[in-house]
């Protein structure tokens, strides 16, 4: 009773009162549970990791060694290749997802037979566990008796050693990552397409625009928010990508498909805790340095008719 009374009174007496009422109804300590969980499970470990990256630590004790871990990390013989691999993987998968996702979404938003079924099929890989996908494709891509090469040899083509050939391994993993992740991009684009008002298309048709012109001047620019979302999400995912690579090649053969995350993981496994913490700090900085400016640039370029 009393609550309804106050509410109606504030409504009558204007905006400023209402906001004061809102802040009263949800006092600061309402945030406390979330803040504690966020602080203990995220902020604290993150800050601690900045400190521990400057030490050589075991589970039993630690020794402060300044920036030695970073020097060591940057002198890793495989780091250059690993960095290159990471960038290739991130930009290749992100770019392919943008193109494929957009094409699939445009196709699936048109008049297609069994539209709902096809949409489900394209989204399905997203629901499967990454490690499961990795293990399955590892078997499919077996050079001698894997399904892919067996099918190719049926047509008289000798398939490559997908994961066994050092020059192919990372590319093969990237293809699987696109297969696995293109569903998300498609769904985002479908939503983006649905949000484009019909009036523009109708107006363009009245003016005699071709299909290509319509796509170039209406669909593409108005899909830009969707594109920037897909780029950011898949680029961050690609830069940090680990699970699929680990399940399929463990960074091998040799070091041929190592990325930053798998190098860091191997250092952690080997017990080089300080070094791997430093590696994570580097990865954090690299991801931020690429994604933050890109995000701002993409946001600026968004258009509104």
């Amino acid at each position, binding site marked *: 009773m009393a609550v309804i009374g106050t509410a109606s009174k504030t409504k009558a007496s204007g905006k400023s009162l209402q906001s004061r009422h809102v802040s009263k109804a949800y006092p600061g300590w309402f945030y406390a549970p979330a803040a504690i969980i966020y602080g203990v499970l995220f902020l604290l470990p993150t800050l601690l990791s900045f400190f521990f990256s400057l030490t050589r630590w075991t589970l039993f004790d630690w020794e402060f060694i300044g920036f030695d871990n970073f020097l060591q990390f940057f002198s890793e013989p495989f780091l250059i290749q690993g960095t290159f691999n990471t960038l290739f993987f991130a930009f290749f998968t992100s770019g392919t997802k943008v193109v494929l996702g957009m094409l699939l979404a445009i196709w699936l938003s048109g008049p297609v037979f069994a539209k709902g079924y096809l949409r489900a099929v394209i989204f399905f890989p997203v629901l499967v566990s990454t490690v499961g996908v990795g293990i399955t494709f590892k078997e499919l891509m077996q050079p001698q008796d894997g399904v892919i090469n067996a099918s190719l040899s049926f047509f008289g083509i000798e398939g490559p050693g997908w994961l066994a050939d050092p020059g192919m391994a990372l590319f093969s993993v990237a293809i699987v990552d696109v297969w696995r992740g293109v569903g998300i991009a498609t769904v985002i684009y479908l939503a983006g397409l649905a949000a484009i008002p019909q009036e523009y298309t109708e107006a363009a048709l009245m003016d005699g625009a071709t299909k290509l012109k319509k796509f170039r001047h209406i669909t593409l620019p108005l899909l830009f928010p969707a594109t920037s979302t897909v780029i950011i999400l898949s680029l961050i995912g690609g830069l940090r990508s680990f699970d699929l690579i680990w399940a399929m090649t463990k960074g091998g053969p040799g070091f*041929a498909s190592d990325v930053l995350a798998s190098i860091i993981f191997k250092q952690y496994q080997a*017990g*080089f805790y300080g070094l791997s913490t430093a590696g994570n700090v580097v990865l954090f900085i690299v991801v931020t340095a690429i994604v933050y400016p890109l995000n701002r640039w993409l946001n600026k370029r968004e258009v509104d008719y």
Partner: protein
Amino acid sequence: MTSLRSRKAMTAIAGFTVAAFALSGCASGDSADSGTSTDTGSSDSGSSSEPVELSFLVDNSDQTVGTAEALASAFTAQNPNITIDVETRPGGAEGDNIVKTRLATGEMTDIFWYNSGSLLQALNPNDTLVDLSGEDFMDNVNEAFIAGVTSGDGVFGVPAQTAMGGGILYNKDIYAELGLEVPVTWDEFMDNNAAIKAAGYDPVIQTYGDTWTSQLLVLADYHNVEQANPGWAADYTANEANYSDTASARQGFDRLQEIHEAGYMNSDAATALFNDGLAKLALGEGAHYPMLTFAVSTINDIEGGDVEKIGFFAQPGDSADSNGLTVWLSAAIYMPQTTEGAEREAALQFMDFVASAEGCAAITEGVGQQGPYFINSCTEVDESLSSPIRDMFPYFETPGATTPALEFLSPVKGPALEQITVATGTGQYTAEEAAALYDEDVKKQAQQLGLEGW
């Protein structure tokens, strides 16, 4: 009015919280009390009548679990009041992390199974494990093994298995068919490979799908390194020698490159798994498989496999005179410092049993003998030893023909060796590059361990 109501609510919540804390405080106090009283009870009544249960963490390989259970059940048959509960964990690097984490948090089982040598050193044994050097049963343990479980002044484990050889398993049918002799020099080995290749078999099986198998040609060459440079392990530990600057040490990588370049590997080497490799060897598709002798225990499980058709020889070096075997020390059983009271007594009793002839007999009966035991009183040799295992014994009977693998003589072992050897065996790196990369890798390990001179 609202504020008054909310204040009431607050007070109620606060009151409730305080009560809850008080309650839980009481409860934990109670349980602590009852805990102590049971403890005193058990020590009063004496350890013989009160049953003790020991938890025992082992890795999940069939061989390990079989051995651990054979030891546990034979021991419980002798000491009915002590039961041993075997728990398993994954092997490899994941298992290492589990062991380290459980030790660091004080959650380790009463006793546990773990490698000797360099991996043990990484557990910081002086701070985490119970020193067994004063126990009588350690007198019955072979000296070579003691060296592998010593850190500082402490000795920490009892051998849980037999010695293993690292060398080359070969298919005796192929050797008989082509009239080949067991090689004692590397040149003879390569001549054999040429003949085997000409006859249409794969001379050397490699299985890089399981990366650890790629290290054998480097690791099993250590006897030859030691012959060319006696005491190399100590120089290596002190950072006075490395793989790049010692020709004999680099030779393991050279061998791998040589075999790759000669085209002696199976065509699916890049993806084949350990079990595929064993099957190829057992079924006569390939002639040689550089491997540890433990592998032969499962050959009879392969369809059409017969372990009697498999033989074993040490990795040949430059000279026939210095031909000898690189030996792997077995895993050991350790006790963390967190094991106390009746459990510690029971665990020492169990270790005493493991380090006795009865312990060896229990292992032989449970999983079969896999090589010479490290227990001095275990002189009995199982009649039914398989052919490759029998081939190991002559090396042990010849003085100076066995050397422990480097990882038991030095705490320094780089974690990326298996990737480096895969890269060498698939032709991505030359032996020279591989040796230099491995030296870099080793440096990190030595620094992490805080060794002098790195």
